[in-house]
């Protein structure tokens, strides 16, 4: 075994970890389609899917088999290239952002020093998925859904970046492992509470989850930007949405709830518990809240959240500088 140098072993280990993380994320995102329907059923006093397997647990397999054999219909009036590109972007953009999430001290794909900026870049690209899908479908409902979504995502991305900058200022780094390490004593949800609230709101809007699901408001727009999609292409939008839910939950945990830190239990259990908690919150939001009017949603973004994040950043900067100045003097 002369070729098995320490370098090769390290590379192989890293590659295997990357593949395992990818599979776990995709499978848990797909499984969420069943979890969400069961939970919504519970909260709305009905059963939800309960026919396939015990408690309907095999529903995912049945759904997948069905979608594999559905007709993959590309209507003749669409713009072919963007029509095919849109689901691929929807699925991959947010999936790629998982590369920066440190799951435990030893698990994680890459320890990039641009860290959180990669997520902002990918969230920016994810807008193209909805824009391309809405425009290429050549359908009025799709176009309306795509435009609404672009305006909404863009309005909420402005302050999404700024809401995290308080955390970056305290940790002094974009790197996610440094941010987690800075939370050994106090989780950032306490000093950066407004940052947490605004980032959570922006995260729901970027993942297009209810109550910010204007792009596909089914009562008004048939199905919004994916009206003309069928089969697994539609399935990719669907899985992409759940990947967004998992990703935003994992980011909230990493940035504001101390990542893997916690007493008694091993790091991986803490990370999964916290992430699971936020995923449940996403589903509970959908079950509990009605969709606000579009102009109210835009007002909340521009007139409340954006000034709030700016003021939060100013105060955080002053506190951090005062603190470090006192440390120097002492």
């Amino acid at each position: 075994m002369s070729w098995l140098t320490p370098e090769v072993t390290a590379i192989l280990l890293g590659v295997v970890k990357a593949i395992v993380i990818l599979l776990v994320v995709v499978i848990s995102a797909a499984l969420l389609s069943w979890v969400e329907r069961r939970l919504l059923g519970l909260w709305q006093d009905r059963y939800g899917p309960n026919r396939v397997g015990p408690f309907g647990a095999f529903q995912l397999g049945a759904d997948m088999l069905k979608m594999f054999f559905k007709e993959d219909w590309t209507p003749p009036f669409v713009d072919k290239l963007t029509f095919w590109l849109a689901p691929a972007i929807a699925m991959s953009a947010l999936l790629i952002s998982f590369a920066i999430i440190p799951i435990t001290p030893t698990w994680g794909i890459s320890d990039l020093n641009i860290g959180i900026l990669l997520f902002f870049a990918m969230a920016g690209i994810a807008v193209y998925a909805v824009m391309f899908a809405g425009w290429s479908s050549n359908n009025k409902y799709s176009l309306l859904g795509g435009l609404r979504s672009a305006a909404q995502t863009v309005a909420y991305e402005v302050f999404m970046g700024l809401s995290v900058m308080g955390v970056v200022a305290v940790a002094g780094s974009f790197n996610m492992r440094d941010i987690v390490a800075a939370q050994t004593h106090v989780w950032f949800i306490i000093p950066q509470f407004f940052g947490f609230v605004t980032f959570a709101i922006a995260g729901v809007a970027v993942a297009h989850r209810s109550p910010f699901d204007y792009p596909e408001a089914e009562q008004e727009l048939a199905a919004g930007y994916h009206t003309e999609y069928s089969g697994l292409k539609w399935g990719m939008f669907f899985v992409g949405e759940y990947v967004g839910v998992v990703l935003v939950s994992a980011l909230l945990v990493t940035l504001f709830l101390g990542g893997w830190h916690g007493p008694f239990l091993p790091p991986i259990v803490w990370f999964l518990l916290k992430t699971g908690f936020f995923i449940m919150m996403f589903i509970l939001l959908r079950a509990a809240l009605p969709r606000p009017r579009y102009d109210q949603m835009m007002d909340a973004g521009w007139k409340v959240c954006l000034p709030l994040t700016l003021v939060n950043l100013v105060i955080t900067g002053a506190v951090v500088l005062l603190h470090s100045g006192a440390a120097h003097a002492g």
Partner: protein
Amino acid sequence: MSSSIQTVAEHWSLAVYLGAVGLLCAFMLGVSYLLGGRDWGRAKNEPFESGVSSVGGARLRFSAKFYLIAMFFVIFDVEALFLYVWAVSLREAGWTGYIEAVVFITILLIGLVYLWRIGALDWAPESRRRKMQASKMTHIKEAE
């Protein structure tokens, strides 16, 4: 030495991860193209608009509000980028940098308040807002 091995391993795992995501997308697009059924229907070649026959194309003119939002995004997001750089170098920049950033943020907020006051952030058209204002006034008068 061990840290350089670590870096190389991380680059490999990132590259493989990106490749695997690409493969997964290609697989999902390809498998449904290969396995999916084929069928023919009379109304299948029309856009789905909840059963109403489609009139005209979907290349429509849109409310200028959407374009305004896009412009505000460019203005505010590009300015937010400067604040990203300031936030990460907060301690190095010190109080001098802090005062400059506060001036910058103040100008940003003044710009936002200006847009707010001229009604650029209002989604409803002005005529409708005036009507709502008038109806509110009559309600108050009736109450009196």
